[in-house]
């Protein structure tokens, strides 16, 4: 894929939203601080029909969805912010979005339990001239704390419409819709610029505004009981000096290990299915090149990757649970101190963690980091966190190293690889942070929301959306590369077969065919590059195909080492590992895949930046082409050199 094409694709999401908004007869924006229940309201209004899916962590880009039942009315969800002074990137996104699309009404979502803090941004929006509808959430929680809110009074004091959301009552949606329909008599004038806003919200005026909001809060809330100190019971564990660290380590280990443990039965099922599908397609399709192409090219290629979908779904699922339960904010606060020693920030936690799913949304999530240097260091090390595309590669290679059926060991090995990625990132950023002087001092401020039981329906739906997005992104590439590789490995290169003088004497016909293919010719060009890694040209081609998409490596291996002669009952993955164990260098008994070469490949995949969409996003988020390309060159070059050292070093130590 072309670099510029990737860039265009990234803007497509924004473009889609922009087009939807342009064609809409009306648009309503949602603005509110983090943890105010903004997403819940967005889901309620749109029926969870995202035009664009949001990723783990934080909403850092605005997204849109049609109002359920009104196709031509759009709802805009903006990043969760508590202020519009735009001193941070996500605040800037919100301000730009409002100014660009000029929504009819701005719904400001406020938590009934922290009214004054959340009314502050409503004050700013009113100052800017927007028609504000206050949506008060978590009234049920407030009631439990003995607080009763007088919403009519709130409407009177804030001089805007107010609607309360109570999850235990029906008709919430209807109430919001009715208020949305009401038009303000005076047309709203949004003439205030960001400069005017900043001039108006100074130290002294903020103080006065809060004094006013305090008065409103006092008049609106009828206290029925003195609120108790809201220390959350579970925090006695999660934030305990010892148990807090232990539980943090356990949660992280559990997530990464369970990727292996829980996924196994599903993976066996899918693997078996594709094994069966290959055989079945062979009996149905004609036994010519076309039948071959479909069964051994397309089905085997897709199957080799589809097998890993359960693991990716499980990773997304656990991240969704952490996100929805409120643990992510705690994780960030816990890990702030260690991360700050590495030149990072507690706010780097969510971007780094979501880097284990995909580097692209992770880099976008880094916008929440206020300090420019910490933000750049986070962006730099994100690609070292092993994203879900590397999972299939690791699983195959670990499967090769481990005896069959040792899920526990394999899980531990995977957890070690995942931790290894983080460790490398920690070393890189520690060193760099000592070399570069920061121009802004570091700070950390993180709201800790109450621990909630995750809502299954929401977690399931977001997991589904993210998995779908993943398949849509990776699927076509895998199919295309599988087809291309099949063609390359089956098409003889012109004049190539004859000129090959060093052809092995007694090789299977299978090898003779592939050794005269186009792939062989390409492979032999790159063989000098892959030889130091202990790989023959076939392994080299498979390794290089990872630059199209990392997971393609697995299907390339399946295609290039020709699984078609294997026994019928086995799944694709099983066959591939078996084949890897037996394959030798041409004309010799020397095995290609040994402990050292496989470890070398694992190390290469851990470090190399093989994903071009990531480079495109990095360029955007760094705000510098130079830094993005430097990152690409250093990581990929470093991966290559370190892998050679590892393979050759192990061999020197006598480990084949």
């Amino acid at each position, binding site marked *: 894929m072309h670099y510029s094409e990737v860039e265009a694709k990234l803007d497509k999401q924004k473009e889609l939203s922009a087009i939807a908004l342009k064609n809409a007869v009306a648009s309503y924006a949602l603005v509110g601080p983090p*943890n105010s229940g903004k997403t819940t309201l967005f889901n309620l209004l749109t029926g969870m029909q995202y035009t664009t899916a949001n990723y783990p962590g934080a909403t850092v880009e605005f997204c849109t969805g049609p109002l359920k039942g009104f196709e031509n009315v759009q709802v805009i969800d903006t990043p969760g912010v*508590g*202020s519009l*002074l735009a*001193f941070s990137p996500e605040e800037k996104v919100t301000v730009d979005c409002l100014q660009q699309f000029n929504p009819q009404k701005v719904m400001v979502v406020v*938590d009934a*339990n*922290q*009214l*004054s*803090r959340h009314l*502050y941004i409503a004050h700013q929006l009113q100052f800017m001239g927007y028609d504000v509808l206050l949506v008060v959430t978590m009234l049920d929680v407030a009631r439990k704390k003995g607080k009763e809110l007088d919403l009519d009074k709130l409407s009177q004091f804030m001089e805007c419409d107010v609607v309360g959301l109570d999850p235990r009552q029906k008709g919430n949606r209807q109430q919001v819709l009715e208020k949305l329909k009401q038009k303000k008599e005076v047309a709203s004038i949004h003439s205030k610029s960001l400069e005017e806003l900043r001039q108006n*919200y*100074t*130290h002294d005026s*903020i*103080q006065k505004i*809060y*004094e006013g909001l*305090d008065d409103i809060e006092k008049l609106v809330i009828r206290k029925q009981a003195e609120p108790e*100190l*809201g*220390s959350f019971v579970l*925090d006695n564990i999660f*934030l*305990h*000096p*010892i148990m*807090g*660290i232990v539980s*943090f380590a356990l949660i992280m280990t559990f997530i990464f290990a369970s990727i292996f443990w829980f996924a196994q039965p599903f993976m066996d099922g899918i693997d078996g299915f594709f094994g069966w599908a290959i055989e079945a397609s062979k009996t149905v399709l004609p036994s010519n090149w076309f039948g071959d192409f479909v069964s051994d090219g397309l089905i085997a290629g897709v199957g080799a990757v589809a097998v890993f979908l359960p693991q990716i779904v499980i990773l997304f699922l656990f991240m969704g649970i952490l996100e929805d339960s409120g643990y992510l904010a705690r994780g960030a*606060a*816990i890990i*702030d*101190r*260690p991360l*700050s020693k590495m030149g990072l920030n*507690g706010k780097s936690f969510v971007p780094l963690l979501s880097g284990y799913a995909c580097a692209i949304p992770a880099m976008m999530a880094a916008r929440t980091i206020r300090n420019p240097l910490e933000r750049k260091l986070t962006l730099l090390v994100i690609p070292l966190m092993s994203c879900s595309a590397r999972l299939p590669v690791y699983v195959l290679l670990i499967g090769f190293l481990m005896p069959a059926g040792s899920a526990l060991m394999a899980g531990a090995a995977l957890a070690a690889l995942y931790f290894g990625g983080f460790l490398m990132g920690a070393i890189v950023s520690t060193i760099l942070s000592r070399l570069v002087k920061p121009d802004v*001092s570091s*700070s*950390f*401020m*993180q*709201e*800790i*929301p109450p621990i909630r039981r995750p809502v299954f329906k929401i977690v399931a739906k977001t997991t589904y959306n993210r998995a779908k997005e993943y398949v849509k992104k990776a699927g076509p590439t895998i199919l295309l590369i599988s087809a291309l590789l099949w063609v390359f490995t089956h098409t003889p290169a012109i004049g190539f077969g004859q000129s090959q003088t060093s052809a092995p004497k007694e090789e299977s016909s299978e090898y003779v065919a592939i050794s005269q293919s186009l792939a062989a010719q390409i492979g032999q060009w790159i063989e000098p590059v892959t030889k130091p890694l202990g790989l023959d040209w076939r392994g080299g081609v498979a390794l290089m195909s990872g630059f199209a998409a990392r997971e393609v490596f697995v299907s390339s291996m399946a295609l290039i080492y020709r699984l078609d002669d294997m026994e019928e009952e086995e799944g694709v993955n099983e066959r591939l590992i078996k084949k890897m164990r037996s394959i030798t260098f041409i004309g010799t008994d020397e095995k290609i895949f040994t402990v050292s070469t496989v470890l070398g490949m694992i190390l290469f995949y851990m470090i190399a930046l093989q994903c071009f969409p990531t480079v495109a996003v990095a360029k955007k988020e760094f705000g510098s082409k130079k830094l993005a390309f430097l990152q690409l060159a250093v990581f990929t070059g470093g991966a290559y050199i370190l892998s050679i050292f590892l393979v050759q070093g192990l061999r020197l130590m006598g480990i084949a």
Partner: protein
Amino acid sequence: MEKNLVQLNKGEWAIIDSLRGDDLLTLRLKESGFTPGSKITMVRKTPFGDPILYEIRGTQIALRKKEAECITLK
């Protein structure tokens, strides 16, 4: 002898007197509701001892010691 936020023990509360230090940082703190005159309670430390969790205006916010030192108490 001036008291700042770091000196609060677990469960103790006080009234914010003033904010001192970096201009952008104190503006940020004010915007988040750490205004002079508001009540603030020390909830607990996080496992590594820093940041510290405070309750203010109906929510809990974790602040590093360095920021908490900018907030003086009455």
